[in-house]
């Protein structure tokens, strides 16, 4: 790739990513996902010692649920809306290849997903830390949590008021910083506010689990981008939900098929094996995710995403506007 092409690619990615991070919907989805994750421990009491496990399971479920909505929305906001509004014509009137354009869009969506996964990871750590232990609920932690939205929103509002800069971008940054600060603070103290060894009360296994789910979301983002060249946002998200659900029960679906090895192999190739990215069962058994498990899943994810992106590009390449 020449310097000029690299500059083009970065320009396209940067523009698409800026557009996505400035969308109010992106901020609201990330905020909601993390709010659901963090507030789940409130609903967990008297679960016979399973509170932490349930809180972490819920956080993984929320990450998937909000993640597919975010992926579908982001793909349509960048690609579909650009096709509809006609701004894509201006881009293609410049010496920009469709492949570069398509990949730049994917990279922008991937950046948003990675940011979402980072925030989800922090929120999951908090959820695990705050889940009731021995029937005791961490009221101090709850009060600290309620300050997070204020810490995120008030500075962003002040920046917007005095400098007229984008509220959404600064609110996102503020929210992320506040999350990380809260994890750090609560990692250093217990429910009574006494100092403890950092991280001793936090279940760190959730971080690789979130990362694993993030890889699945990147696969789903590739599918979303492929669909977004033709379909609207609700349809794209609906199909992503069907793909996610089918991927989670792919083993069961394959047993329902006629016993033809070729057919079963074909379906296994087409349906993404989302089960490999659902770590809740492993975490429930007390295991942690080893590097090899994640590497294996990442290799599968990269290969699958590349395949889907090839299909998507093949559909996009000859699209007329």
């Amino acid at each position, binding site marked *: 790739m020449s310097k000029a092409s690299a500059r083009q690619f970065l320009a396209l990615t940067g523009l698409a990513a800026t557009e996505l991070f400035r969308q109010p919907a992106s901020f609201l989805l990330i905020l909601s996902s993390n709010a659901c994750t963090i507030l789940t421990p409130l609903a967990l009491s008297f679960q016979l010692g399973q509170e932490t496990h349930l809180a972490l399971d819920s956080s993984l479920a929320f990450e998937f649920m909000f993640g597919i909505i975010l992926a579908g929305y982001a793909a349509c906001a960048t690609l579909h809306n650009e096709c509809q509004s006609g701004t894509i014509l201006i881009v293609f009137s410049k010496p920009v290849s469709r492949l570069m354009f398509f990949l730049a869009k994917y990279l922008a969506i991937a950046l948003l997903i990675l940011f979402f996964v980072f925030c989800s990871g922090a929120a999951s750590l908090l959820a695990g830390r705050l889940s009731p232990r021995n029937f005791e609920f961490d009221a101090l932690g709850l009060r600290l949590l309620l300050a997070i939205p204020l810490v995120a929103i008030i500075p962003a509002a002040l920046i*917007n*008021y005095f400098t*007229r800069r984008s*509220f959404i971008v600064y609110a996102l940054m503020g929210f992320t910083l506040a999350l990380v600060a809260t994890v750090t603070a609560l990692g250093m103290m217990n429910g009574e506010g006494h100092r403890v060894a950092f991280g001793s009360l936090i279940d760190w296994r959730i971080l690789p689990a979130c990362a694993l789910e993030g890889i699945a979301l990147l696969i789903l983002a590739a599918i979303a981008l492929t669909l977004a060249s033709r379909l609207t946002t609700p349809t794209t998200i609906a199909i992503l939900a069907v793909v996610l659900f089918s991927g989670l029960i792919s083993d069961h679906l394959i047993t329902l098929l006629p016993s033809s090895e070729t057919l079963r192999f074909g379906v296994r190739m087409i349906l993404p094996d989302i089960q490999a990215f659902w770590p809740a069962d492993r975490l429930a058994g007390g295991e942690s995710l080893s590097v090899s498990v994640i590497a294996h899943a990442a290799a599968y994810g990269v290969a699958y995403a590349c395949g889907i992106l090839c299909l998507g590009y093949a559909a996009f390449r000859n699209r007329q506007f």
Partner: protein
Amino acid sequence: MNDEINTECVIEARGLTKVFRDFWGRPKVLAVNGINLDVRRGEIFGLLGPNGSGKSTTIKMILGLLHPSSGQLSVLGQSPRTVSVKSRMGFMPEESYLYKYLTADEILNFYANLYGMSGPHKTERVNTLIEQMGLSKARDRRVGEFSKGMARRIGLAQALLNDPDLILLDEPTSGLDPIGCREVKDLLLALARQGKTILICSHHLSDMQDICSRVAILLQGEVCATGSVQELLATPDTLKLTLRAPSQTTLTAVLDLLERETGTRPQVDHTGRTLESVYIETVSQRKSAP
């Protein structure tokens, strides 16, 4: 142009101001700043100005889509926010914001229903306008498949559905070919002769010059010039004579005389036709040729 212009004001604006505010309620953009405007019945009034001068904002306030920050505005003797006044108005926007899944026929029928039209009167009016706009062959095609020019024609047709007393047009000739432009201009002149009042926003100054009786030029939200086209265009200390070409001797004698009287030698040019008339003539001849 319509010489029998009534003095009755159809649109009257006094100190009209519009300030767009940000989320905190602070002024962000002063789009229209204290303009005074009178549009009289039966005239074709042009609103000119560079981009961002406040033309669209003024039109939207007249249509009741925006609320003035201060000042007074009256349209057909009522506040523009009154719903009933819209039954006597027609609006053609700059872009054709149409429902792309409907056919031309369905769109006009839909808007006719919104005007409260029904029965044979509605059908007749829709058919007449489709014929008039030259869309008979495309009446059952979806608007999403129309070219820009065809979409503009539908846009104009829906503005005329209710036989309005006041018609507002934003770039009416944009996207139309020269013959289409000529037809629209002729239509607008005919409507003005019927006593309709027309307010046009356009950047096509030659079109405005052709049809407008009065214009206002906006700049940065203020009216910087207003008056009849003739008054604005006239240069009082020069004259233009049109005559059959005399002999060279006579011409030289006349020019010498005028030079002695005025101090400058007049310029002599042969009059010609406009590019528009050549185009129309050529296309018409080709169309009528066997």
